[in-house]
């Protein structure tokens, strides 16, 4: 808690290229420059890591020194004058770039990083392709560093971002720089591989194509791909991500910065959980019409049960509540648990492997575990059962699978094949989180938007539209609305614009989120 008797340090007034700029106290100069829109090329600095000052790319002229200094290390003092452009700074940048390209291989044609590579961009901007180096380049090995990552040693520029990440964020310290001089390269101890739950973040932050994601290797040229923002739904953390979509497939997820949720990071398990989207196990054939399903539910009388999942969107849960209330149905919710993990920095991977448990709490309050409902089904207390699942790779509770033949009528809505299907009178192939619009509420109560990344497989429909049509068939609803329409109905006073790019906590002010840093311009 800040001491109320001590006023906080005042901001510092500096001049950047002649223009006065207010710098928050204690922040490094490069941080200030980047966040006030001044472009300063850099490699080794990252806002989520301590600065290293080794790439020398961020050299600027400062009034406190005769020579150029690295802006990533300077903490500005009152009255500091900074020049980030002009012949002297340009000469410094050109020189550093020329040195950086001395041993860096001309791998662009085969390098995954092409198109999103800071070295490529800076070389294009500052050197126009000229290098005077005529010697033989140093050779460093290309090899696996662990399960997910392959390092191309020749490309490594020894910026140490990956090492600092493993030291400061995960605390697992599997990486180091080995050797000396121009034989320096990032590496592990030969017997201890890179193996932590967030290891793929090192690939994101590698400024060049040295560290590569084996799952993404050669999958797509990023300039042919689309980037789409969404939320990872593999646990209750709700990390903000951006998908790289190519030829209608999600090729990878990368973290998107959100200081109220995941900072700069995401975990491997979540970002790699995309194989199910285009899997062959996806359901495509429907069984039964909406009218059949409505009839099947009405036939249950007052012995209807609905089992949904805690990965359904807030809109869908709202509709489930509408349906359950109207039918007087008992409700249960499928879930998924797994190992949790906390990084040294505090980043957590939640044990709850679903995306919207808080949404369930919000609409339904405390609900008994779904196995209770499954036993009720087994005991014959349920005549009509509707099961809707949105959790990929769920482990179906044995009690529910065993009880599946018992009800008089069973309807199942799911994305992929599941053990209940043989007993279902109605089957609805449905879309997954990557194919629909909607919102989910993370563990902290923040509502965040998921967006469609790819077109759903033919024959599928979203639970959002299915539930609305079902409600309409039961005479409980007049119109079938978009996800935003349902959202406005469920949350009067809120709309998707207010949810924004970074989410909103209902009840908190609708002012923009407090984090003053938008990490602009570097990855």
């Amino acid at each position, binding site marked *: 808690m800040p001491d109320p008797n001590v006023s906080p340090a005042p901001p510092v007034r500096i001049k950047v290229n002649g223009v006065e700029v207010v710098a928050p106290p204690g922040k490094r100069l490069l941080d200030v420059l980047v966040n006030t829109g001044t472009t300063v090329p850099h490699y080794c600095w990252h806002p989520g890591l301590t600065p*290293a*000052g*080794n*790439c*020398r*790319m961020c*050299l600027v002229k400062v009034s406190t020194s005769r*020579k*150029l200094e*690295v802006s990533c*290390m300077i903490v500005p003092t009152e009255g500091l004058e900074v020049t980030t452009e002009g012949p002297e700074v340009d000469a*410094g940048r050109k*020189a*550093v770039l*020329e*040195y*950086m390209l*001395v*041993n860096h291989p001309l791998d662009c044609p085969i390098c995954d990083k092409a198109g999103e590579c800071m070295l490529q961009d800076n070389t294009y901007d500052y050197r126009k392709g000229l290098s*005077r*180096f*005529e*010697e*033989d380049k*140093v050779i460093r090995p290309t090899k696996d560093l662990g399960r997910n990552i392959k390092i191309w040693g020749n490309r490594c*520029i*020894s910026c140490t971002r990956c090492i600092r990440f*493993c030291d400061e964020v995960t605390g*697992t*310290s*599997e*990486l*180091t*720089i*080995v*050797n*000396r*001089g*121009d*034989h*320096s390269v990032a*590496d*592990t*101890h*030969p*017997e*201890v591989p890179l193996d932590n739950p967030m290891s793929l973040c090192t690939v994101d932050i590698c400024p060049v194509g040295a560290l590569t994601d084996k799952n993404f290797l050669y999958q797509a040229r990023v300039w042919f791909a689309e980037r789409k923002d969404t939320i990872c739904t593999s646990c209750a953390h709700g990390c903000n991500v951006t998908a790289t979509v190519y030829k209608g497939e999600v090729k990878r997820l990368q973290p998107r910065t959100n200081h109220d949720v995941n900072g700069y990071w995401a975990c491997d398990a979540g970002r790699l959980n995309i194989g199910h989207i285009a899997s062959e196990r996806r359901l495509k054939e429907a069984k039964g019409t909406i009218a059949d399903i409505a009839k099947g539910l009405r036939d249950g009388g007052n012995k209807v049960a609905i089992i949904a999942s805690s990965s359904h969107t807030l809109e869908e849960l709202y509709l489930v509540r509408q349906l359950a209330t109207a039918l007087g149905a008992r409700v249960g919710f499928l879930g998924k648990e797994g190992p949790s993990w906390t990084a040294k920095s505090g980043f957590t991977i939640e044990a709850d492997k679903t995306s919207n448990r808080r949404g369930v709490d919000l609409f339904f309050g405390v609900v008994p575990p779904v196995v209770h409902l499954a036993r009720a089904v087994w005991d014959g207390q349920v005549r009509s059962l509707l099961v809707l699942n949105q959790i990929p790779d769920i482990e179906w509770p044995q009690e529910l699978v065993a009880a599946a033949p018992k009800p008089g009528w069973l309807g199942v809505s799911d994305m992929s094949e599941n053990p209940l299907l043989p007993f279902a009178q109605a089957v609805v192939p449905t879309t997954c989180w990557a194919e629909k619009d909607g919102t989910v509420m993370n563990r902290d109560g923040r509502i965040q938007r998921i967006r469609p990344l790819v077109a759903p497989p033919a024959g599928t429909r979203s639970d959002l539209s299915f539930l609305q049509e079902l409600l309409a068939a039961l005479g409980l609803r007049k119109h079938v609305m978009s996800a935003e329409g349902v959202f406005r109905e469920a949350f009067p006073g809120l709309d998707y614009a207010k949810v924004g790019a970074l989410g909103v906590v209902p009840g908190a002010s609708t002012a923009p989120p407090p984090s003053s840093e938008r990490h602009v311009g570097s990855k």
Partner: protein
Amino acid sequence: MNPTNRDKPSTAPEAIGNKPPITPPAASGARVYASRPPPREREFTPAVKLELERICERYPKRDAALLPALRLLEREFGCVDEPGMRHVAALLGVSAAKVFGVFTFYTHYRRSTDGRYVMQVCSTLPCALRGSEKIFDQLAAELGIGKDGTTPDGMFTLKKVECLANCDMAPCIQINEDFVDRLTPEACTQILADIRAAEAARPGSNVRPAYRAPPQQYHLPPNPYPPVLLQHILEPGSETIDHYTRRGGYEQARKLFTSSRPPDEIIEAVFQSGLRGRGGAGFMTGQKWKFLAKNDKPRYLVVNADESEPGTFKDKLLIDKDPHLMLEGILIAAYAIKAKAAYIYIRGEFGRGARILNQAVDEAYAKGFLGKNVFGSTQDLDITVHRGGGAYICGEETGLLSSLEGGRGHPKIKPPFPAVEGAWGAPTIVNNVETLACLPGILEHGGAWFKSRGTEKSAGTKLFSLCGNVVRPGNYELPLGVPLRELIFDIAGGIPNGKKLKAVCPGGSSAPFLTAEEVMRDDPLIRLDFESLAAAGTMLGSGAIIVMDEDTCMVDAMWNILRFYAHESCGQCTPCREGTGWIAKTAGRFERGGARVDEIDKLDEVAWGMVGRTICVLADAAAMPARSILRKFRAEFEAHAQGKACGHDHGSFKKLPKGALHA
């Protein structure tokens, strides 16, 4: 084989003091060299684990014991290997990767692939000028292996290493930890024969080497100027505390500690004496002490005994033959800066020096000159000897601190400077061995006495390490200000074999080179002091003076020192990491005759492009001498580029076939 006193365990009793001194124990069990197949796990015995714990206690943070722990792995298992590194990582609470990164940074740790005898041929300029290439070629031919090769029987590994600080004994090699001086190709043959004979006489694969080279003999060349630091250096037993105290040693420290003189008064006295750092930078010692931050943090005195500047071999002499002179200097400095702990960072290759220092430190503890209540006063001082692992950049003060803290020798961004934020974030003073050795004299005789020798801005005497093509190489203690030509020609005998002088590098290889014409000029007369050499566009530096005769190919000389800087660059920052490698390779291409004339200017620009853009000045140390050679001996580069013989006998250096990459 001569019996030596190296193998006797230290006989110093358990010392008085807060922390007992570190006494390396005698043989502690079987020493295994490169056992095949290597075990999958390594574990120290309980006794060695305890030894490591006691080492850890000497540092404020446990992981600073990493470099000493690697030496323990060497001693116990014969090498540092991957399971050993994991074991040490677990004991010290650091990651395996950290240990691996540290291990691969340094060159002097034994690897699991090393043979029983690692033959390290010094190849830097002073040894190259006196035929080191012939020594390497002889050994390579007889052993049938090339650079970095190991004989199939696992007996020999052959390496080229950088300056061993033994330049007056050039050409020299190091066999494991032993120096062998003034080699000839014939002597090489003899040594190999001696080694093989020793091994044959005592067979068995899992024992330590049977052969130890005879200990180095020290000598001083004749010198008309009276010695100050070197007064007693060659007397038998000069390295013992008894000898030192009998000649009045430790009296100044005793008087100081039992006085109530304010420490600031000592700082002022040293400042007024005009003493300037003797390690290379020449910064006013008293001024540096005045920069210490005033806060509650503990203060550290760190001794830079990482003598690695090519051509320099003065600290080695002081450490091996008069360590107590420096130790008393440490006491005085520690009093002045109020440090309770001092660390002597000694370069990894100085195994003998580290042993001698540990012995001297033990003796001082035993007499109550160190530890708790120094000289019966209320003050404490602990000294710890910390061996490096083989890296020139650990002579840079913040590179040294990074290494002392248990890491790779990476220089730190300045500011903050060590006097404000140094070792473990605390205010730290790093001083050179020779600088500290000057302190007892200054305290005894006063600043005016110190200033009475030397020049107005360069007070006192300095040790100059003269080497290369000169009749009497060696350490010369001279008052600052003696003309450079007087040293070379009037004192040291001039150039051997009737040859003419061609060039001099007057401050260690990081100093711009001087032509013979500049050296011999009457006006301006170049004197051996800070100002005169700076005015001549070079620097005094460490005081190493490398003399080159008319047969020296300057293209070869430049390539030689640029290879040194490329090997020694820590690799952190882009311009130095890439630039030193680049200019070394281009220089090599010039030497082979494969470069063009237009590349001379390019080489100059590439060297200049590193300057002022790096974390430390190793880049400058490579660029400045290189540029001076390019400028002053341009004709030789043009001749090489045009495919003409440069007119110099390449007997000192080796001519490589076109297409070969590195020597």
